């Protein structure tokens, strides 16, 4: 059962990654691309956790955790740039 769920999960998350990548490539606007990058980060968390479950290892958890706590800062910096230009005032 778990195996089927994992396979399904992988397919769905990879699909999401693929779509984000497409959005990232075609744009058309900067906010689209930034959002696509952020979605890619979120999907990476899912990928890592799924992979960890498949391998039965907890080693991947920290990478996922790190993306979770830090990944958004990049998005934030990009967005703040779009908003104000100067990201640190």
């Amino acid at each position, binding site marked *: 059962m778990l195996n089927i769920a994992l396979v399904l999960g992988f397919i769905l998350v990879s699909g999401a990654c693929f779509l984000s990548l497409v959005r990232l490539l075609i744009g058309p606007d*900067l906010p689209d691309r930034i959002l696509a*990058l952020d979605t890619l980060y979120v999907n990476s968390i899912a990928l890592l956790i799924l992979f960890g479950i498949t391998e039965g290892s907890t080693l991947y958890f*920290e990478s996922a955790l790190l993306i979770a706590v*830090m990944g958004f*800062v990049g998005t934030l910096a990009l967005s703040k740039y779009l908003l104000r230009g100067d990201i640190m005032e």
Partner: protein
Amino acid sequence: MTLVDFNLPVVVLLPFLGALLATQAARFNRLAAAGTAAVITILALILLLPALPLPFAGQTLIQRWEWVPSLGLEFAFRLDGLGLLFALLILVIGLLVIIYARYYLSPQDSMGRFFAFLLSFMGSMLGIVLSENLIQLVIFWELTSLSSFLLISYWYTRSDARQGARMALTITGMGGLALFGGVLILGHIVGSFNLTEVLAASSLIHASPWYTPMLVLILLGAFTKSAQFPFHFWLPHAMAAPTPVSAYLHSATMVKAGIFLLVRLFPVLSGTPEWHWLVGTAGMLTLLLGAFTALFKHDIKGLLAYSTISHLGLITLLLGIGSPLAVVAALFHIINHATFKASLFMVAGIVDHETGTRDMRRVNGLMKYMPQVGILAIIASAAMAGVPLLNGFLSKEMFFDQTVSVSAISPLAWVIPVLATLAGVFSVAYSARFVHDIFFNGEPINLPKKPHEPPLYMKIPVGLLVLACIAVGVFPVYTIAGVLYVAIAGALQTTPPEYSLALWHGFSAPLLMSFIALVVGLIVYLIRKPLFAWYDRGLSQWDARIVYQALVNGLIHWAQSVTRRLDRGTFRNMLIWFFGVTLLAGVVGFWDEALLGTRELMPVDGITAMAIAGLILSSLLTVLKHRSRLISLVMLGVVGLVVSLGFAKFSAPDLALTQLSVEIVTVVLLMLALYFLPQYTHMLSSHKRHYQDIAWAMGLGFSAALLTLAVLTRDLQSISGYFLAHSKTGGGGTNVVNVILVDFRGFDTLGEIVVLALAGLGIVALLQGIKLYAPKRNAEGVPWSQESHPLILQVQARILFPMMLMVAIFIFLRGHNLPGGGFIAGLIAALAIVLQNLANGIVWTAARIRWDMHSVLAAGIGIATFTGLGAMLMHYPFLTSTFTYLKWPIVGKFEIASAMGFDTGVFLVVVGATVMILVQLGRLNYIETEDTGDLQPAKGSTP
């Protein structure tokens, strides 16, 4: 342990300490610097005293400590008769020069700087003469060149001083390099760099096929230092130094270093035709050239400089003759020359000081104004000319005697005593000129100052030296004989030959030569007027300096043309050269070897394939979109993410964590910088060039991929096995990466965090006060939003702060056993702080996180260093780590390693440097402009 077990290094190093003290003393009182220098010199003399009886008892005192035994380096000192003679000369004349300089320097001159340089010179010179290890000797040799450079350029506002200093450093520096090469060969022949072994290996050295190159290299070192032809020309230009320096370095001591070296190595180098020809010829040419040119110099110090060159040539010639008696004469003349020449330089300084000029065409008739100085000068000049009853006469007689005895060896050798007499003639003539032109010869002409007697303490050093000239000249046996005897024994390394210091040897050839020199010399001086005219017409343009400058300029032009040909000043050009050569090396290396190894490739799964496709695609787009920088940056974000995931997948969790943290910090950094940069770049190069560059890039990328594949398909034995085996037992942690960082390679990490801290400080310093232009509108021309800190962002960021710190602490603590550690934790914590700056503003954050990041940096380096030093307290090498197990309630048993302290240091440095750099960038002042997008620093833009 008595004083004679360790006093020599103390004597050598004391002046260096004194140099530091002198600069500090000069802050309170400029005269205190002179006092410090004098006290240090006397102290050094006193410390040397207990060792004095040893050379007289025929013993050689050697004090040695291990330094780098694997390289044959010892910290070793040696005192025998030769070293003793030179050490005494250096210290005694040094003391007199210090007293003299105290009154010579004017109130505008910095005494602290002068005496600090002088003392460091004294220490370096003592180091040369008291070294047992030859490499150590070379190091001190270089130090004398450096301190001489600093002393010549003491009045650094004068261009002649700077030029003279540069020239002296170039020539003696080149010589030092040659000497180093020679010494390395010598050490290689003998198998030891210690003088004791080297001096005992005479036959081995003579038989070696390396003898001639070694001799030439060592002679280059000695000749450049001792101003021998054709390297003599730096010495007259070094006369731009203050006169006490000329008296000390450029007549009494430093220029004798080359001769000291020749004497030191005399027992093992001499006795071959190469030695006789090279040393003898250089000595003879220098002797003649110096004596001849000295007569025609109108500058007092110029005359003395060429006279010094000529006397150095005389000593070198004696060493070239190479008989034991010639060495006796050489050593005797070294002492005598040091005394009379130092005193004459001091007289020159007095004249300069009291009249304001050194031109002998204007300085005349000073006997009336300063009779005491005049008398001292007359005696010293007479010693220089070789007048009987003065020390110069005795050694010059010995010299003439040696030239006569050598004239018997071949039919052409009769020319040697003749040329020696000729040099003697000029020597008498310029001595006469020195006395007559300065102190008699009518009235002074148009002097800037009215001359009068100098202060008493300027005359005392001169008086003492002149007294020595007379004492040695009249009672040689009771004054100098003892020191001279042990010095000769030290130089020859055997019992000295029979020699006599008597004043009267009966009517003999040397006496006749002295007589001819005196009489003809005076005649030459009398007919000087036409001689001067003749010299000025033709010979005055002949100057080795011109050749030197042509050589230097030629070298610079050649270097420039080569550089121009290779380096067109563009980054592209440099890359093509670099990668072209790399590519060539790769092709040549793999020409007849299979590129790929035998290991099987791993199977590809769907997700990995997709990730790789995404990686390639986003890399490609990063390049294609590089002209609109923001899009390019977003693409780069994908590249970073996929690479991190790749690290995670292929079992490098530490790398994955690091890559992720670095990735995010980099995005913030680039966004900070992008604000001040144009958002779009114009097309900068032609299409043709683009295709070329694409070809290059693809070729190189392909090669790099092939090489990676070549490595990956081979079985290779790496050092990782060792670390895996020892990580837990030796470093107390199961995370090998972290144990390597904080334990096995802790010293590297310490260096790296210091570099990181310095880079951070450097960036902050560079950004200080900088003003940049920033656009008022975005790329589409829309004005920026008015809302500087959106509320949702503020609140979210504040809530996240403690969580991020918690993750940082978690990653830090588990680092020793599981992926993590100080570096990653530092980046997370730094990002937590940076996030607050982004969301809430710099002012808000600074009011709440009050730590000064400079202090955090300092604390980090401090903690890391002290953790390392802690190991030394327990008599382990620096940074040895230890660990133990603790048992706490609730937590249970856990292990604690001292490396944790070190990792804390790493953590703090990373936090400090990252936050400091990013916040400093965010804090930059800027001037808003209307320009958007493609932005140039617009000065006159419309508002």
